[in-house]
């Protein structure tokens, strides 16, 4: 049975070693090297990290990453829970509404970002056309270029694309709560409001945790939305760490520094990854 198991697992283990585990170890090593594309690397210890800490832009970008992730995850959570609760109300044509609200999940993030780039267009975008015609604005706003608006506009796109993931999980969670719990509470004289806070929310906590953690990992490490919409502009105000690493690596070829930028985020990710793995495995054994 051992040989058989080994044979069955061999392809997966080989692939994952080649394209995930080995590259990860390699990335760690690179972050301690002065390595430029096409040239051999030179070990420089903590040199890359020191360079980052001395750069005021780095602290800005680090803060942006935390802000972008925190706000996007928070809004997705609120809209996702609201959508799930509304979709869980008895209503005619509910399956049609559900289908519509889940659509952004099936739209590739790159496509969503390009479409929103056009919606935000200063002169001919839907947002400005609509606001100007409704008389709410005199002239269109350059949403992605105004320091005040750029980050909000970027976050809105991440929220648009990412909310259905939450709605789906939460709706499934709501529908899995046993009806008896609510009936028992009703016999005890509890109203809808109390039922929501004393039954719905507590029962959903495990789902909240898993969804939030998964989404935090994915949101903080995905570069597409930022890369397409602003690529960090104006003046790095919407820049996030993974996209900064991408830019430094692709345009300047500085692979060592690029790896170090990503590694800064890694300790935080590790905490989430370990907690998540533990939860997913526990659920698996139950």
């Amino acid at each position: 049975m051992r040989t058989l198991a080994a044979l069955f697992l061999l392809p997966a283990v080989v692939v994952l070693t080649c394209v995930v585990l080995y590259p990860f170890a390699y990335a760690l090593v690179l972050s301690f090297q002065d390595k430029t594309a096409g040239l051999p690397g030179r070990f420089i210890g903590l040199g890359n990290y020191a360079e980052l800490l001395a750069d005021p832009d780095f602290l800005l970008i680090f803060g942006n990453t935390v802000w972008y992730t925190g706000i996007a995850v928070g809004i997705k959570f609120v809209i996702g829970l609201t959508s799930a609760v509304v979709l869980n109300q008895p209503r005619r044509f509910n399956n049609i509404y559900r289908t519509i609200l889940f659509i952004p999940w099936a739209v590739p993030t790159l496509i969503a970002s390009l479409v929103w780039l056009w919606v935000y267009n200063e002169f001919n975008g839907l947002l400005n056309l609509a606001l100007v015609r409704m008389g709410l604005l005199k002239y269109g706003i350059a949403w992605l270029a105004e320091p005040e608006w750029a980050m909000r506009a970027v976050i809105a796109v991440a929220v648009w694309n990412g909310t259905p993931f939450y709605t789906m999980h939460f709706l499934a969670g709501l529908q899995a709560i046993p009806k008896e719990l609510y009936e028992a509470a009703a016999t005890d004289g509890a109203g809808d409001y109390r039922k929501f806070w004393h039954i719905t929310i507590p029962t959903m906590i495990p789902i909240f945790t898993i969804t939030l953690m998964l989404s935090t990992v994915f949101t903080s490490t995905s570069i597409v939305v930022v890369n397409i919409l602003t690529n960090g502009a104006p003046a790095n105000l919407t820049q996030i760490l993974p996209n900064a690493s991408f830019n430094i690596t692709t345009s300047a070829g500085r692979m060592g520094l690029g790896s170090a930028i990503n590694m800064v985020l890694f300790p935080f990710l590790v905490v989430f990854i370990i907690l998540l793995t533990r939860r997913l495995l526990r659920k698996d054994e139950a």
Partner: protein
Amino acid sequence: MALTQSASRRVAHGIGGVILLVLIVWTLAPLYWMLVTSLKDKSEIYGAAATLWPAEPTLENYRVLFADTNFLIYFRNSLIVASATTFFSLIIAALGAYALTRLRFPGRRFVARALIYTYLMPSSLLFIPLLIIIRSIGLQNTLEGLVFSYLGFTVPFCTWLLMGYFMSIPIELEESAMIDGCTRLGVLLRIVVPLTVPALAVVAFFSFTLSWNEFIYASVLVTDVDVRTIPTGIPSFVVGDVFFWGPMMASTVISAVPPLVVYFVFQRFLITGLTLGAVKG
């Protein structure tokens, strides 16, 4: 003064309806704009005469897209890469998931854990070393290189989802087949796979869309125009600072169609599938 139960429920229902309407508008508005722009003439897209709906719908943007750009090449490449990735991940994941759910061997828990770690490992962290590795084995600028790299995120995800489904199959079915002389591989192919066709469809959908959408690896591993995929091809329609929004929106419509069609057709499976695999209540 508290409202009666039924009155408060009606209020909640009404508020819910309003919220639903807002959410639907928010969800559909950008998609409406994409579709409508792709059907507009230049004069309706730009300038003072810009319209909110097309006065004279035209397919001109689609003609430009197919005749004057490399879109068809990108589309074909994406199709090849996504199909090949899906094919290989299904095989690798089915074998792996079967071993992890049905065979007892030392280190089983360790492998299951490692699988989740690799699934959560962000590609934004791996693309730099991966570029060096793919280059050194001569797969830079090839579709094979992309497929190989994409297996890094599709295999852990697919294996993980399939493990959930395989566990739901009663083990007695397999045991009786083995008493009848069926081998393990035979059990997997004749019993487990036919019983989990919907699950395999879900898993196939995920690996297809994940590789259809992939952006980071595609931008660093491939630079030649004739091996570009949609995610790196479409943004290159921007020439300098000039966007050709008409053809660009036509291309996004076409690129969004395959995942959307699959979503509409299989949504029941997809949603139960996703929640079975990711949330068990």
